[in-house]
């Protein structure tokens, strides 16, 4: 964690967590703590369990043993608790997953509306402010299918932010995008990180990691194999598996 941090409030605590898909041991003894304001980049080869791990953080996947605490809420099978946690944890998917039957603005408003936001007028204003922030306010009335991939992903980020989450999870947010659209999405994420948002991003975008990440967590075969500051990780990886992985993404 950064030196000089006044107070460290754990946003996410994972202890001895194990996850199985029937016989397959997908996550093995995961330990991870994320403090408020920390920005974590999660990387590793395909199938190493990155998606599974972040999906366990908002209850899209369940796990068999260990504990996961997210913004003070222990993730159990209680749907009430899981829902409370989800309302404070935003998630952005590789495939955007905007709601195609709703306009951009209504994509942002539907969750506040259905989770009992008290002041919809104010929420609406906030939604417009967020669209402004991801530089897409002029498209508020359009439908997702009328937007480019990069625009859709920025709307998806704004949609998650509209619930005023304390943590943001990103699962390969740019890997479905054409190269020329990657930057506009990364810029929004960097802006968010600079603003103090706690975030965990699964991404292989090294530039992003170097610009904003406090630490890089490297996974392989369901385990966290190495954790390091980005410059250290990319220039001088300690484990052989990380070295091999970096070799493949650099070539």
């Amino acid at each position: 964690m950064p030196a000089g941090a006044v107070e460290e409030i754990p946003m996410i605590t994972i202890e001895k967590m194990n996850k199985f898909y029937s016989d397959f041991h997908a996550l093995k003894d995961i330990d991870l703590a994320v403090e408020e304001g920390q920005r974590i980049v999660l990387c590793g080869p395909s199938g190493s369990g990155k998606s599974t791990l972040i999906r366990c953080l908002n209850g899209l996947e369940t796990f068999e043993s260990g504990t996961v605490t997210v913004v003070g809420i222990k993730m159990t099978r209680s749907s009430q608790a899981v829902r409370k946690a989800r309302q404070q944890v935003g998630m952005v998917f590789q495939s955007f997953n905007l709601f195609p039957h709703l306009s951009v603005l209504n994509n942002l408003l539907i969750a506040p509306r259905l989770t009992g936001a008290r002041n919809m007028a104010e929420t609406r204003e906030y939604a417009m402010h967020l669209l402004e922030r991801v530089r897409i306010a002029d498209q508020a009335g359009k439908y997702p299918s009328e937007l480019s991939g990069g625009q859709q992903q920025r709307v998806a980020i704004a949609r998650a932010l509209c619930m005023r989450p304390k943590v943001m999870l990103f699962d390969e947010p740019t890997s479905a995008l054409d190269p020329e659209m990657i930057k506009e999405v990364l810029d929004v994420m960097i802006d968010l990180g600079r603003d103090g948002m706690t975030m965990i991003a699964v991404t292989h975008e090294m530039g992003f990691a170097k610009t904003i990440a406090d630490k890089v967590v490297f996974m392989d075969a369901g385990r966290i194999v190495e954790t390091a500051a980005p410059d250290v990780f990319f220039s001088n990886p300690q484990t052989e598996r990380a070295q091999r992985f970096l070799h493949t993404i650099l070539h």
Partner: protein
Amino acid sequence: MQAFLNNFANVDTFVSVLPLLLSGLLVTVSLALVALPLSLLSGLLVALLFAVKNRVLTAVLFVLIDLCRSIPVLVLLMIIFYALPFLGLMMPPFVAVVLTLVINNTGYFGEIFRAGLASVPKHQQEAGLALGISRPRVLLFIVVPQAIRNVAAPLASNALELAKATSIASLVTMPELLRVAQVAQANVYNPTPLVAAAALYFIVLWPFSRLVARYELKTIKARY
């Protein structure tokens, strides 16, 4: 040709039976307007019950649906209107016809909605859940609207089938369009009333099918 017109499109007959036909049309329309929403609702309910994925429930639903669908609608009406009274269950013809149509169409609409629900990618549900929306609300406000949109065409064509099937009401002597046309024909000794009834069915249902086609075209753009 003249003889043909005199028989099949006799103007004098047409004018004289028109008020009767219109009163019949009114009954037909009210049957459809009551039976259609109820059938849609019960069909959707069945599809949602399938989504619960309980094995026993699914088996029961399959049996019920297959049963309802394999009984001819006329036979169903006869049973409901003429056989149930023997069990002490008597109902006015209007209710009997609506009940028959709903039972008969629940299976069809149920299957259509089921295909519609299956056509919505799993990702959509996950996106809703990840925002902290409860599962029933995700289903109702995110999945169902998309499901309906994806199967709008089969829904509409089944709705047209239902509207036409209201003519079974003539069998329980309800004065709906077909029944009044038959009565009128017996009085005037020419088929003009029947032709006029067919024309009325067409006039009422055609704009509806056009509307559906237009709606389809508009929403087909809003795809994933």
